[in-house]
């Protein structure tokens, strides 16, 4: 045990004394979250909107006034017909069109339900989401004021947002889970496989092998510091996502952390597997980048929606660990679901870790060849 701890301590020295390692470990997640985060969340002020008012009633007027006085929106155009909407969008200035159907005010006063339609240009999906969210809140706020609590609810306004050009808004909140998957894979798999390969390259591995340390001890000693650091990293990214970018955390934090640990363990087992094959740092690096980073970026649904991939790629995407992790994180953070809905993905991750660990252990040799 003592010798194992000495090994782990040595490993920490390696990590903490190498600026490049530290930079990758803690600089990369910050930069990635910041890059993806601020590219995605544009602060919205004075967004240009258009109005299609078939109603011309009291309530449509009041809601419009409220929208325009919020500071978020600026009316630039009054559209006359549904056909005009598309032309308006095509000109590219207007981001949102608010449609009051005929008899809106009448429905609202007399009926139970009134409809407002919000059409957003979702070719910029993040702006579209923010705009419809803001507008929805303002309209609902108006409706709530008209129905003070306690009194009989007279009517409701149903806001019906519709996204034009990219109706399903794939990939909106995917980036934080995606960045998490990428950083954890990089740190865990790439860094561990490179550090093990470095010992082989410098010849220290030979000295370690001709010592009472066993091969599993050496490997777990290598992996443990990265497990801790990766977990720290995962927490950092979650915190950045929640506090800086306003990603909701609707599900259980504990479950999220456990799943993160599971994914780190999987990434580490891939790293060990690579290191049992690669003899030099260069090979380890290329192997990690090729078999993990590229597929993670392109095939996990991180950037390109899996549903829109050609069938062969969709099949390949099933073996990309990050795909499952991303859907788990999305499930917990955004949908707020629990293990009951995520057990399949979790099982896949557990299964993959098991397989990779088994192969690595089989590849382990107590000798050079």
């Amino acid at each position, binding site marked *: 045990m003592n010798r194992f701890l*000495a*090994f782990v301590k040595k490993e920490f*020295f390696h990590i903490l004394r190498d600026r490049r390692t530290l930079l990758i470990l803690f600089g990369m997640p910050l930069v990635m979250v910041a890059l993806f985060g601020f590219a995605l969340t544009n602060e919205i002020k004075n967004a240009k909107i258009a109005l299609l008012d078939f109603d011309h009633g009291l309530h449509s007027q009041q809601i419009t006034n409220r929208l325009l006085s919020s500071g978020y929106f600026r009316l630039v155009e009054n559209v006359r017909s549904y056909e005009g909407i598309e032309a308006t969008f095509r000109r590219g200035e207007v981001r949102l069109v608010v449609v009051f159907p005929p008899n809106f005010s009448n429905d609202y006063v007399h009926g139970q339900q009134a409809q407002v339609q919000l059409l957003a240009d979702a070719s910029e999906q993040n702006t579209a989401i923010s705009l419809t969210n803001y507008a929805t809140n303002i309209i609902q706020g108006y409706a709530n004021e008209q129905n003070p609590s306690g009194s009989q609810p007279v009517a409701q306004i149903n806001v019906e947002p519709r996204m034009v050009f990219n109706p399903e808004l794939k990939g909106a909140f995917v980036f934080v889970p995606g960045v998490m998957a990428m950083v954890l894979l990089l740190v865990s798999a790439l860094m561990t496989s490179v550090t093990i390969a470095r010992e082989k390259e410098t010849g220290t591995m030979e*000295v370690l092998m*001709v010592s*009472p340390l066993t091969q599993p001890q050496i490997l777990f000693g290598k992996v443990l510091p990265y497990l801790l650091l990766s977990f720290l990293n995962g927490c950092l990214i979650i915190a950045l996502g929640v506090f800086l970018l306003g990603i909701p955390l609707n599900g259980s934090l504990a479950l999220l952390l456990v799943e993160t640990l599971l994914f780190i363990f999987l990434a580490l087992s891939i790293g060990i597997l690579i290191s049992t094959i690669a003899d030099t740092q260069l090979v380890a690096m290329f192997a990690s980048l090729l078999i993990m980073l590229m597929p993670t970026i392109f095939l996990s649904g991180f950037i390109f929606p899996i549903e829109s991939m050609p069938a062969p790629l969709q099949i390949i995407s099933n073996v990309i660990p990050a795909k499952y992790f991303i859907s788990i994180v999305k499930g917990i953070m955004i949908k707020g679901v629990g293990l009951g809905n995520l057990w399949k993905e979790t099982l896949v991750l557990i299964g993959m870790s098991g397989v990779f660990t088994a192969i690595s252990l089989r590849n382990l040799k107590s000798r050079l*060849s």
Partner: protein
Amino acid sequence: MDAIVIERISKSFGETKAVNDVSMSVKTGELFGLIGPDGAGKTTLFKILVTLLRPDAGQATVAGFDVVKDYRRLRTMIGYMPGRFSLYPDLSVEENLTFFATVFGTTISANYNLIRDIYVQLEPFKNRRAGALSGGMKQKLALCCALIHKPDVLFLDEPTTGVDAVSRKEFWEMLQRLKIHGLTMLVSTPYMDEANQCDRIALMQTGQILAIDTPTGVEQLFDKPLFAVKATETYQLIQDLRRAPFTETCYAFGEYLHLTTHAGVTPETVNRYLIMHQHQHSEVKPIQAGIEDSFMALMQHG
């Protein structure tokens, strides 16, 4: 009991027979030199003995333990210093030593008497990163790390390669002093001038042992007349001598040529030949064979 016993060990890499049917033994407490050029199979033999490689055939014991079956036990009892500098350059001198001590379940202070002589030279730099040490210092640190668990047998694979002449001499003096502690040492080197520092040596070439003896014994294996020859035109001299009727071999050896001849040839015979070929300032003297001469001769027959 012999500390190392090697019986008919062979190891091939593909078609190449790196070690070919080698048998030898090293006595306990002996400083044994394995001498041969690059590619002779020294490192492969070392890796088999330190349990890193499994031999294709044959068996070997170190300190009475089989290198294949008892490898786990053996790994606590041997010290190994590979040819390359294999310590952690980003750890300090002291951290390297502490790490290896802990890995072997001991402490620096427990075996300090063994490394004292060597470590006192390193102590002023104990907080320096190992990567920033000079070549000679690195090698001393590596030796300390290989010694720190008081091994029964110490394997040093080309410890003096790439080290300056002064450090090489110092290093061998350190090894001589370590003999007091009863340590068995197997040292490989491509430098034949280091052979005289060993109690016994084995000459190795293309995977085979050519001779095993004391350094003097190996020199005495040489049984032909040997002359050191010098003249102004060295290149012409070597050409002429290689054509001479009495010559067996002729090699350049520093400023002299070493000329081996058939039995019965005298310096006068050689001198007459040189004058006949118009060599000036020629000098011919009979000499005692060195290890290198023996090795050259053995290679010829081998």
